[in-house]
C-alpha cells in the first residue's frame, strides 16, 4: 500500500468517525475530535514558526536588525499572563494590538463601507429606462426604511412606524436570500465530502 493510499484510508476513517456524530455523540467522534484539535494546534505552531517567526523576526534579528527586539519583547510580554505578579505587562502588548486594529477598522468601515455605500446608493430616480428607475426606487426606499427601523430615538408609531415596518420586510427578504445561499453553501460542502468518500476512497463514481 502506498503512502497516498494509506492516507486516503486514514482520512476516510476519520471522516466516518465525524459522520457518526449524526447518529449520536459517541467515543469515535470524541476521539476524532480530540485528534483534530491536537493536530490543528500543532499545525498552527509549526506553520507560524516557519512562515512568520523565522522570516519576519529571527532572520532579520540575526542579520543585525536590532529594532526587531521590540516586537520580540512585546510578544514575550503576552506570556506574562501566566504569572499573577507580572501579568500587567501583557496589557501593554494587548493595548498595542487593540489600538492598531481599532484604528484600522475605523478607517476601513468609514471609507470602504460607510462613505462608499452611501455613494453607491445615490441613484437617479427618473430619466433612465423604466426597469432601472424602478430598481433605483426600490433600492432607495428600501435602504431608507431599513435605516428607520434601526432608529432608536423615536417610538415606532404612526407613519414612522409604518416606514419601520416596511424596513423589517426588506430585512426579511434579505435574510431569506441569506438562508437560500447558506443552504447552497452547506450542501456543497457535503457534495465535496461524498466526492471524497465515493471517488478518492472507494472509486465507485462513474467517470
Amino acid at each position, binding site marked *: 500500500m502506498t503512502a497516498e493510499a494509506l492516507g486516503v484510508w486514514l482520512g476516510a476513517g476519520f471522516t466516518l468517525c465525524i459522520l457518526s456524530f449524526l447518529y449520536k455523540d459517541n467515543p469515535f467522534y470524541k476521539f476524532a475530535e480530540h485528534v483534530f484539535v491536537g493536530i490543528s494546534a500543532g499545525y498552527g505552531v509549526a506553520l507560524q514558526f516557519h512562515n512568520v517567526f523565522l522570516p519576519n523576526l529571527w532572520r532579520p534579528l540575526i542579520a543585525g536588525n536590532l529594532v526587531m527586539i521590540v516586537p520580540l519583547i512585546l510578544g514575550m510580554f503576552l506570556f506574562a499572563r501566566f504569572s499573577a505578579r507580572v501579568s500587567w505587562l501583557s496589557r501593554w502588548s494587548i493595548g498595542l494590538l487593540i489600538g492598531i486594529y481599532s484604528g484600522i477598522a475605523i478607517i476601513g468601515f468609514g471609507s470602504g*463601507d460607510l462613505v462608499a455605500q452611501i455613494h453607491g446608493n445615490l441613484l437617479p430616480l427618473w430619466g433612465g429606462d423604466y426597469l432601472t428607475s424602478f430598481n433605483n426606487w426600490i433600492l432607495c426606499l428600501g435602504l431608507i426604511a431599513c435605516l428607520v427601523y434601526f432608529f432608536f430615538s423615536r417610538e415606532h408609531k404612526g407613519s414612522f412606524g409604518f416606514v419601520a415596518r416596511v424596513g423589517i420586510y426588506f430585512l426579511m427578504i434579505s435574510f431569506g436570500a441569506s438562508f437560500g445561499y447558506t443552504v447552497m453553501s452547506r450542501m456543497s460542502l457535503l457534495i465535496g465530502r461524498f466526492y471524497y468518500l465515493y471517488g478518492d476512497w472507494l472509486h465507485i463514481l462513474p467517470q
Partner: protein
Amino acid sequence: MRKEVPLIITFLAGAFFIADYFVPHTGFSHIAETINGWTIIVITFAYVLGVANVTRVNLDYIQRKGKDTPYKIILLICLLFMMTVGIVWGIAEGTIFDWFFINIYVPMQSMMFALLAFYIASAAFRAFRIRSTQAALLAITAVLVMIGRVPIGEAIWKDFSNFAEWIMNVPQLAGKRAILIGAALGAISTGLKVIVGLERTHLGAD
C-alpha cells in the same frame, strides 16, 4: 500606572493608524510600516499563547483525572507530534507534516463543516414555520433564491436564474446595505470608545 500605560499605548496606536490614512507623508508611512511589521510578530506570539493555553487547560484536566482524560492525552500527543514534525523536518509538500495535514486535518475539518448540511435540512423540516408575514417573506425569498440559483430552476423556468439574480441585486441588497451601514457605525463607535479609553473590557478586570 498599570492601567494608564496600556491605555496610552492604545490611544497612540489607534490615533496613529487613523492618521496614517489621511497623511501621505513618506516619513509617516515608514513608521506605520515598521509598526505593522511588529504587529505581525506580536500577534503570532498571541497565537502561540493560545496554544499554550490549550496545553495548560488540558494538562490541568489530566491532573484532575476527569472522565475524558484518555482523550485529552491523545490531544496533547497529537499537538506535540505535529509541532515537532513540522518544526524539525519542515512543512513543504511531501513532508510528514504535509502528509498528516492533507490526510487528517483536511478530511476532518471538511466533514465537520459538512455536518451542517444535515442540520440545515433538518431545521428546514422541523423548525422553519411560517407563522407571520415576516416569516412568510423570508420563506418565499429563501425558496426562490434556493431554486433560482441552481440549474434545475432554469429547467423549470428559463428566466428563473435572472429573477433570482434580480432579488439579490435589488431588494435583498437594500436590506444588506442598511445592515452594512449600521454595522459600520457600530464598529466606528466601538473603535472610538476603545481608542479614547472608554471601553476597557479587553484589558481585563483589575
